[in-house]
């Protein structure tokens, strides 16, 4: 039983390390900020969570105690890392970092233009109402 858990932990840690490697390759190879943020926030999060779960299982099998700090770390990384990716991408978008030139759709830009047209219309309507 202990050996099986240890092998499971080893497989998890190797998978996590591979996912981290894939993350770095993605950050180097992908063309613009948003696709890089996609690579960094998703696969790195899963990779770190796999490695931490592997460490948790290993210490459970080897030393027989479950580290509360590792459980807390898994939950914490799962909550915060995607939010960090979201905030970086949003900050990049609002400082007008260009999208990749082969991008076909920018929904946020369409929404922005629609709302700006709306505000202009309401401004024009305001004097009529009063």
């Amino acid at each position, binding site marked *: 039983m202990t050996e099986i858990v240890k092998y499971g932990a080893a497989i998890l840690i190797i998978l996590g390390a591979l996912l981290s490697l894939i993350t770095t390759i993605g950050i180097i190879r992908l063309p613009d900020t948003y696709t890089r943020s996609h690579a960094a926030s998703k696969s790195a999060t899963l990779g770190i969570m796999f490695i931490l779960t592997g460490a948790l299982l290993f210490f459970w099998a080897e030393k027989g105690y479950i580290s*509360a700090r590792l459980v807390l770390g898994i939950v914490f990384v799962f909550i*915060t890392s995607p*939010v960090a990716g979201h905030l970086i991408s949003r900050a990049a978008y609002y400082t007008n970092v260009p999208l990749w030139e082969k991008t076909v759709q920018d929904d946020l830009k369409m929404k922005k233009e629609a709302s700006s047209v709306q505000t202009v219309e309401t401004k024009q309507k305001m004097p009529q109402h009063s």
Partner: protein
Amino acid sequence: MKVNDLILQTVTKVVAFIILIFSIYLFWTGHYTPGGGFVGGLMASSALVLMLLAFDVKTIKNVIPFDYKMIIATGLFIAVATGLGSFVFDVPFLTHTFGHPHLPGLGEVSLATASLFDLGVYLVVVGVTMTIIQTIGESE
């Protein structure tokens, strides 16, 4: 288009509690495992700084109405008082003691007066960090 911080604020409401609990954990386990007043205090002030990032300074001042300079003073007073308390028992300054009392509900626990000194360190670290960050953040 209106910019909002809904995701950051919602996550902050959850994560700040996790960080605060972890800071208290670090503070209490400092005697036998890595941790203690310094790291715990830095961790608690990092939770407060996260809240300052997600909300603005005025909201946080309303929610947590502490004067951080008073917290520094309280921490220093606790640290000095634990040292002066040893004079009552006719031993040198800052002599600490420990015991294993049997508390109801918790069983036998190991309590040391060094953790009171650590509480002083904790409060001073929280106060100094928050004073530095708030004064820099408020200056225009």
